């Protein structure tokens, strides 16, 4: 196979506008108390995306903020905004009622500690990063995969943005994040076949890019599974996704029983980040998988909140409770938690 292929367009990632809170201002981070430079725990506004399904896997829509209770390490959180599917988010008031916050909504934006105005397109729709495996492992299904991804891009909600990245040994930014479907498809159709597969290295790089973008974002990995070139372990990448709140959806073109290690890893990284895994060997199954992801994006809820004071600098467990479901008939799928970031003082 050719050894030097891959399109790269260079993402000019938008600067993250997530607000930042500094908890316990004079308290320096951990061990470095008397030394320079100081680190502090940095808690961005948490963006939490989740879905609610019944026992048959049917999405439950139309739920309201007051139907949910968000806990972080058991501490009840105060919702800042609430959104369903691709509808514009609404501000959640003290009493649990809501009011529109987007421009034209006739109300003021909810206050944010850093003064960031959330009335922006960034909070409408989902930023979808498609990570397309173009390594040798995908050689045979390359064109069908390309077709399936193109279909998926065309079918995305108007409010969604999409970026197309391809990878073999290195990452290639085939199309930057855009709402122009044609632009994304042009990038996709220029993807070229490569050689080795460094799935987890490239997933990490895609996550780093996605983390810079404000609003809701997901990564969809389209891969055959094997990785023969990565230096990072899947669970280290999964940790980054958890911390950044980016669900990972995986469409594996491999047989579920053929590669048990990849299968388990795919299950783990998708479940732990609030995403889902699909094993879709045929083109038809791939299309169905994409349809399911689209449905999941359209039927998910997105909540933002600024965490209540919490001394825990390690992993913070998130629990989304459905107040209106005492019988626990419904299932909430969300990431299990995150680790707050650390930054220089």
């Amino acid at each position, binding site marked *: 196979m050719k050894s030097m292929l891959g399109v*790269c367009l260079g993402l000019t990632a938008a600067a993250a506008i997530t607000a930042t809170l500094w908890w316990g201002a004079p308290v320096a981070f951990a061990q470095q108390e008397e030394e320079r430079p100081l680190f502090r725990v940095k808690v961005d506004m948490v963006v939490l995306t989740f879905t609610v399904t019944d026992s048959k896997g049917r999405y439950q829509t139309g739920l309201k903020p007051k139907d949910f209770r968000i806990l972080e390490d058991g501490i009840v959180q105060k919702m800042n905004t609430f959104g369903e599917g691709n509808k514009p988010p609404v501000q959640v008031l003290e009493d649990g009622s809501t009011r529109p916050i987007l421009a034209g909504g006739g109300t003021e934006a909810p206050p944010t500690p850093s003064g960031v105005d959330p009335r922006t397109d960034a909070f409408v729709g989902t930023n979808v990063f498609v990570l397309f495996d173009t390594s040798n492992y995908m050689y045979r299904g390359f064109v069908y995969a390309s077709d399936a991804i193109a279909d998926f891009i065309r079918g995305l909600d108007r409010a969604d943005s999409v970026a197309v990245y391809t990878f073999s040994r290195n990452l290639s930014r085939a199309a930057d994040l855009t709402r122009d479907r044609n632009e994304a498809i042009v990038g996709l159709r220029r993807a*070229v076949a490569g050689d080795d597969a460094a799935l987890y290295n490239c997933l990490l790089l895609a996550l780093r890019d996605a983390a810079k973008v404000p609003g809701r974002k997901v990564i969809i990995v389209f891969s055959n599974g094997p990785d023969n070139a*990565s230096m990072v372990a899947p669970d280290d990448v999964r940790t980054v996704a958890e911390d950044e709140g980016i669900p990972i959806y995986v469409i594996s073109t491999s047989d579920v029983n053929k590669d048990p290690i990849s299968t388990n890893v795919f299950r783990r990284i998708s479940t732990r980040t609030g995403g889902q895994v699909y094993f879709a060997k045929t083109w038809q199954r791939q299309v169905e998988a994409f349809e399911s992801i689209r449905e999941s994006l359209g039927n998910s809820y997105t909540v933002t909140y600024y965490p209540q004071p919490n001394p825990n600098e390690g992993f913070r467990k998130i629990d989304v409770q459905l107040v209106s479901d005492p019988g626990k008939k419904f299932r909430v799928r969300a990431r299990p938690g995150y680790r707050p970031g650390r930054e220089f003082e």
Partner: protein
Amino acid sequence: MRLSSFLVLGCVLAIGLAQAQDAVSRARQMESSGDTAGAARVLAEAAQAANASEASLAAVAEFLDRHGNSGARTAYEKLIGRTSDGARKRDALRRLVLLDLQAQDNAAAGRHLEQYRAAGGQDLPAALPSWSQSEAMPVIEIPGPVFSFSRMAALSPDLKPEELLPALARNIVTNGYQASSSQEALEQTEYLKLVFRYLSQARELEKLSGADKTIRIETCESKETAEILRILGFRMRGSCGTELILETMNASRAFLTIDSGFPLAELEQVLRTNRPFTYDYRPTRAPILYGAEYWLSSREKQSGEFIDTFMGDPALCRLYLGLSKLDRETAEELRKVVPAQRLRAFAHVLDFFGGMFLIREGKLAVPGGSRSAAAWTELAGVSPDQGAQFIERLLTRDDGWLSSYFDALSRIEGPTLDYLAEPERLKRFYAALRGRVTSPGPARPVFRSNTDLMLLTTRLRVDANGQPHIPGGVEVWRDLFVKHPHGKYDGKLTRLATTWKAPDDVLEALFALCRKAVENEPLKIFMAMSDLSRKRSAALEAATVDRLARQYRALAAQYPIFTEVPSLSDAAILNYLETAAEISSIRDQGVRANVAGTFQALVGLWQIFSRNEAIPSSAAEPALVSIVDSFGKLRNGKELFNAGVSGVRTLLKAAGASEQVSEQDYVLDLLAGTAKPGDAEAHQQIVQEMVRIFEGQKLISLKMLMDIADHLDALAKGEKLNPTLFSRLTTRLSELQLPRASLTGVEKNALSFGYWTEKHIEQQRKMNLRAVVERAGADAGKLDDVREDLAPTLRDTLVGLNYLYYAPPGAQLLRTNPLFVRSHDFLGVQGTNQTWRNTEVLGTGWPSSAGGRLVGSLAGMAYALAEAEQNFLIPSREQALIWGDLVPQMILSAKIPRWWQVTPAQVHWVGLHVRLGESLAAEAMLDPARRTWLGSVLGRQAAPARTSRVTELLSAGNLPRALENITVSELFLIAGDYVKNNKDGGVLVREIQRLAQASPDTVNYQAISRAFGTPKPTLTTSYRPELLHLRTFPTLMGYSSRIMAESWESSILYYVALADEMHLPPGRLNVAIPEWTQQTVERIFATHLEDWPALLRSLRVVGKETRDRKKDQQEKAAGGGA
């Protein structure tokens, strides 16, 4: 009245003149102190004044010229308009002519040339020459656009048309064919099959494109629509209109469509909107040497298109590749004399070893010149005066041995060549190299297998007495061959060794060993020993060389440590070897890993501090001896911890730290490069990046460890327990998670290594120091024992500090895997002993590990870390992958040196040399004598074909293309040669000389080599940066392009010249060079492993982007100001 007017006027003029002079001298002072931006401002203000003096105008013009500013031309124009001084005017006009040519403004150059001559200038021609374009080569046509063909054939689209076929030939030779499992013949690889399939599809599309070679689809319903979709392998889903979607119908065709970059999405869009689609489908026109007829047999001429025949015959491709490496005159001579069919049989030899052939007036230039001509005649059987026949003999004589010998000697010059080309010696060493059985020759494998020969001839040192340097003397080598430590190197040589008396005897044996295909240890030992003694003031003693030679197999990776400080004594070196042996003898593997890790990490820090002159050379040896001594006879972890703490204190003391400083902070300062930075912002930026990684790795600071150690002492004296201290440590360590806690049974079984590193991490996780201390109470003995628990933590901190220094820009691994440092495996996979071996990357591809890690000693950690990180770089261009062997060396060159000690004058000196080199190239377009001179200087570095190409391009008036073929280090050398021989050579030369006179200690070629050289661990057994000015090496068996990468010295010189142009203070180099390096790597678009022109192109792209960014910023600032 009149008198008073004159007086007033005189006073005004005098004041103006004084002000101008003041501005000029102020600017000069600012420039000298490194504030070039300030100097530029002052001069610009002075020049803009209404009464600007001639002196200030001249100062501005020359300042801008010296700093490569494009405004220099305007400034010179202004000066010319004002000055009445004839000499000054001539000087300015001369510079203008050359700057015009560099700016490709030939009209202005012609105008200024006329003015120059009118002003009395004599040394340039009266008018611009009528530059003749070089003779156009015949061309062949390849179906489809060049863009698509390049994608399919893995060729860089930046290639010039004449480079297309040689590059294709190389790819066919290296990637096009493979051994067949079922038959003797070679079979096509998938790569080549796809190229052929693409050509077939391209031909179908070409038919569709009609006479004007444009594919036209008028509407969605046209009959051509169905045809093009059939060819492309797609079909329409949905009818014409907005619902239409193109989907795969024929997977093979569709793959080619996408892989070749056909604008499918655009076609789809046009069909959806029912607009016409047009696509330029003109064929690729590739110039071909001698025309297509020359290459084909009469049968082949009948059989179809040239490109199919060409790609279908790897021997033909090899021949094409070989001939394309010759300079035009040599190739033509060879073509006239030797039939293509005969050359084809020896194409592999011509390809690998023909690049240095040079025929002029029918005669071949031989290494050693006329003195050696007779010996070469004897060896080849034909006189070099019969150039083509001589080459034919070289190629056909002994399966390539004589050619490889000729090639290796052609690449060197100076005393080493004088020595080796002595006629009798020339024949003797050839006989040794050739041996009795000549097959297989050195051109048979995929890479040149004469690596050892090239390294030996390149690195052999000849002493002042004209004799080769034999480290330790002949006796050492005789003993080594006779009483070899690991079995005989060669039976015959072992017998002969007893008779050795002279250096030539040793060298003869080394030449004989060069023909061996197996690992050539004696030669490697010889080169390492030569390198160790190269910079030393006192030669190594014979006993030391003997010991080093005998321990080479086990400890070779450690030897670069001894070249960091050339004054290191024999005793210190032997002491190190002794301690290494002691550590190796520790039976408990966990303890051995901790001792080796702590020891190597301290020595690693010593290396860094010594290299950066943070530890003065006088204090370097005592510090190393102190560390080494304290690790000699360790019995337990407690002693290890104490040795580690004492090592840190020794290093800090040697670096001049006061006792009050925070150990952690001071070490970080030193790792950033200096404790007294000239540029605090850059320094802080580097420190912050290191702290980020330190935090990401959850390491324990030195200060905390020292505090705990001190507190244990205090507890023994009855002080109260400080629980905070211990809880901080516990909290920190509790954050550690064993790698992949959620491993399944299958995954665990897939693990093949890592037992000891996991145990090491687990030991720290489980440590409850506070409980241990509480149990110890005030018992001094028990409290002392607590230190044992801290030893693994101290090891990780010290190892981590080494990682911080060498972390490449971005450092994804160190940011993502919090156990990366702790996972460093000092033992290696079960059954291997890698404690002292070179650092390796292990665990790539996740199923075999919990992420990759580094294994072995810390000796080669900088390279291994760069190797591990390189795949996180994101190529900015399609088809570009990160270049495996080159990129780690580039990262190494940006991370090992620090430029805090560099002076503004040194930066400017490099910038001036590069600009002078370019200016001399411009002058060579006008002046044939200058062109000849430039060719002769360039020829010392470049192969004849490239040298001829450059002079051809210059005589054709094509400066940009000529400069694309000259590396930055060659420009530097050209300028250096010119300065040496021309005392009065204009503004650039004057400034170079002025700087050298003003700071003779720091502004000279040796100091510049130290300041802006690159580390070359493989070529010189040293990480100390230096410039060697070697010819760029080809790819070599066993090293791929690693040696080529080490011989590449242009990047840093280019960046320094760029920094000079950008007016960056020297301290900023510490931040800018790693950033520019990353950008350069991401922009390289190479076709093959010797494609250094691609690297040069990438450097220039980064330079242009940097300049454009600065220009944008300035314009924005000016706009904002307005």
